[in-house]
């Protein structure tokens, strides 16, 4: 691909038969980047970042907790974005992207909740507090699960795409409302016994470790989503000729291996 035709060529990839091989080519690169960054991030988190003055070693959960929480929210935004694009531009690929993103977003939600609980036990003495952030995170997980359940429950793909897109957008509109309301509720109910907003003053190396892990999580998400969307494309486009050719190629590859 020459540089001069890059403008129109990006739109070209909105077509499934062009996007499918591109996704296959890009995914391993992102996966490799994710692996390298994770190793670097782990090294930074465990061997470079100093022991926290107040929390001791437990704080090292932060290197996985915060990036997971960031990704879980970011992925929902991207999901809502592709849903909106799909509804407005009527592009099949956008719906597939948002559906491929949802399980990974839900996974990051679970990771954020689980690591939060394990971090909470030694620092606040309890696995769970009804803090605004924790509660919003749990509700975000339910939004993900609702989206996944709805798109899986509908058999007609056209309806599943659009229904999922609508609920993703309704959820995205509600996320700020939910966060605000939960925060409001939290300040009324929670005593001053637990203060989560006071972040421990962070050493630069801690921040760098966290950012590296966040970029690793981002690259991982891209890789896994591209890998997940590929068979979804094959499934949807199974009547087309290019999928037939692609399947023949797969059959040859499998035959060669067996």
């Amino acid at each position, binding site marked *: 691909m020459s540089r001069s035709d890059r403008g129109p060529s990006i739109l070209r990839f909105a077509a499934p038969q062009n996007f499918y091989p591109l996704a296959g080519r890009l995914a391993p690169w992102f996966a490799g980047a994710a692996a390298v960054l994770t190793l670097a991030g782990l090294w930074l988190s465990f061997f470079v970042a100093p022991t926290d003055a107040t929390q001791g070693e437990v704080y090292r959960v932060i290197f996985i907790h915060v990036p997971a929480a960031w990704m879980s929210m970011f992925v929902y935004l991207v999901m809502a974005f592709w849903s909106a694009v799909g509804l407005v531009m009527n592009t099949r690929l956008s719906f597939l992207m948002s559906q491929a993103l949802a399980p990974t977003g839900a996974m990051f939600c679970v990771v954020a909740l689980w690591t939060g609980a*394990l971090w909470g036990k030694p620092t606040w003495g309890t696995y769970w507090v009804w803090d605004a952030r924790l509660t919003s995170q749990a509700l975000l997980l339910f939004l993900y699960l609702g989206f996944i359940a709805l798109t899986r429950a509908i058999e007609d793909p056209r309806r599943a795409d659009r229904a999922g897109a609508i609920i993703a957008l309704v959820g995205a509109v509600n996320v700020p409302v939910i966060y605000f309301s939960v925060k409001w509720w939290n300040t009324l109910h929670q005593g001053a016994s637990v203060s989560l907003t006071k972040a421990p003053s962070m050493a630069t190396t801690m921040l760098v470790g966290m950012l590296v892990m966040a970029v690793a999580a981002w690259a991982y998400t891209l890789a896994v989503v591209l890998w997940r969307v590929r068979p979804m494309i094959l499934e949807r486009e199974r009547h087309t000729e290019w999928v037939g050719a692609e399947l023949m190629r797969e059959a040859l590859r499998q035959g060669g291996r067996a």
Partner: protein
Amino acid sequence: MQWESWSAFWNMGGAGFFVWGSYGLTFVLVALELALVFQRRKDTVNRLLRWRKAVGRNGSGLGAGKESPGESRAIP
């Protein structure tokens, strides 16, 4: 270097369970997700191959693409 010995590293200042529990579950979930994604790809390809074979036997021709007029662009 932060750690005096490997056992100090695994102990994490007494918080080993919480730190390794967090990292452990995360990597289990990541591995599980990757395994599911690759399994799903394999399943889909096999199912579609079988489906195409069945369509072919019914007489509409393998890879004829009867429902896709005009979409015969080569894969780059």
